């Protein structure tokens, strides 16, 4: 499905060279829920941005099936990989109604004829559990969870094959987080999507991803099936990350109010 071959990327920050990605190669299969984990600055967002075409890589290639992807890719390739961002507050244009936001990809990629756009927007909103009345509202009247649902509807509008989710639930409260995660899993099954899920929340990864890539300082630290990586981590860094998942020890359980 997606094949990343020997990708490297450097940034120059205040005359210091930062190696954001160092010779990364991986393969993401169709219908995977592929998680990329690592601490801040490990290069996971840079990798996603290269796959999305926001940045150009210094070396290496990205392939989507038989097509080579670059930052100035054609519209036909662009629509196949879409993105849901971390911050629901900035993901929607405050001056545009939800209808205008969701209809934009429909118009750019000519998904439906002009007279059917309204029906299509309504349908997309229903996929993410929002009523048709949301169409005429502005983002400032929506909660964080609702904004993230609209962002998911917008990403689905161009009928993509791959959805890159950059910490889509980290800015939401716990209850809304689980609702949005459930929604994402339902949508994945319904449209047979491939997910690339960027997160540093390992408990989320454990529950929804079937394969996981652990990144550290721009390099691949560990890569494999989620259960294998979690049950038998090979590298010290992955072990440290897994240990960092908050758990309740027996001692703590005892002092908990009954």
């Amino acid at each position, binding site marked *: 499905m997606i094949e990343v071959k020997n990708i490297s990327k450097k940034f120059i920050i205040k005359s210091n060279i930062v190696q954001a990605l160092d010779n990364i190669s991986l393969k993401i299969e169709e219908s995977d829920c592929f998680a990329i984990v690592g601490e801040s600055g490990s290069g996971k967002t840079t990798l996603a941005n290269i796959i999305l075409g926001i940045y150009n890589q210094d070396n290496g290639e990205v392939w989507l099936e038989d097509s080579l992807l670059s930052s100035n890719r054609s519209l036909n390739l662009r629509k196949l990989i*879409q993105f849901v961002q971390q911050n629901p507050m900035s993901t929607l244009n405050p001056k545009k109604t939800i209808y205008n936001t969701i209809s934009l990809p429909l118009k750019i990629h000519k998904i439906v004829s002009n007279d059917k756009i309204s029906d299509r927007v309504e349908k997309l909103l229903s996929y993410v559990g929002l009523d048709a009345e949301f169409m005429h509202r502005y983002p400032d009247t929506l909660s964080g969870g609702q904004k993230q649902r609209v962002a998911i509807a917008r990403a689905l509008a161009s009928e993509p094959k791959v959805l890159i989710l950059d910490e889509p639930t980290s800015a939401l409260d716990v209850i809304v987080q689980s609702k949005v995660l459930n929604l994402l899993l339902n949508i994945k099954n319904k449209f047979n999507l491939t997910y690339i899920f960027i997160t540093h929340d390992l408990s989320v990864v454990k529950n929804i991803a079937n394969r996981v890539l652990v990144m550290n300082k721009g390099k691949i630290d560990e890569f494999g099936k989620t259960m294998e990586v979690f049950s038998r981590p090979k590298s010290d860094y992955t072990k440290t990350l897994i240990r960092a998942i908050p758990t309740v020890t027996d001692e703590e359980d005892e002092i908990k109010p009954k």
Partner: protein
Amino acid sequence: MNFFKSKYFYKFSRNPLSIFGLIIVCVVVLLAIFAPYITPFPEHVGPFTDFANKSKPPSSTYIFGTDKIGRDIFTRCIFGYRISLILGIVVLAIAVPIGVTMGLCAGYIGRKTELVLMRITDVFLAIPALVLALSIIGLLDRPNLLYTMIAVSMAWWPWYTRLIYNITRSIKTEGYIVAAEIMGASKIHIMFREILPNCLPSLLTKITLDLGFVILVGSSLSFLGLGAQPPTPDLGTMVAKGASMLPDTWWFSLFPGFAILIVVLGFNLVGDGLKDMFDVDV
């Protein structure tokens, strides 16, 4: 949504000075539009002389008095508003689209485009607007209203470039811009449909504030004899002609000067109100 019940209008109306400014602007605009119907002597606007009534002080017939060839100053002030408003609107109609387009391109496209456009803007910003307008008029054939408008426009667009450039730079990395880029939206779409609507509150406020200043600069140029030429009634020209007769025939220049003051004050008060209403800094 009823605008008069919105939080925006509430913020605007909280300041009585803004409402006062709005009333002034509305009255001036209405006076200018209906000038031929509400002025007592509309024929005094053209080439007209009435030496029997020359230099008459304010009276019930001529409330602002008459000038040295017997024309009613009140009528000419009201018609003068037409020229001032046309000047302000035409200047901004030229300067705003140029400034906004350059600001959007420099801010969004960046790199060499930004470097070239912003350095050109800096050159224009380094020279005060009135001095620049004077030099541009100096280069043109002979002074008239059209040349004044072109000259003031050329001095005014850089301020809009600077304003829009700063806003564009601050929002170009927002999530919705990145989302539009990933979707494949064109640069033109992103600049004019995604970024520009977010600049509108600041833009509208600056346009309102600038209308007053443009009228003031236009009147200053007319005062120097570089604006509308006689017999066109221009407030700046009227002040200039009357200034040499002070203090004897004080009404020659006092009332046109007062008329300029009123319109500039009106636009400034409305502009300040809009600034509070949109909570923007221009």
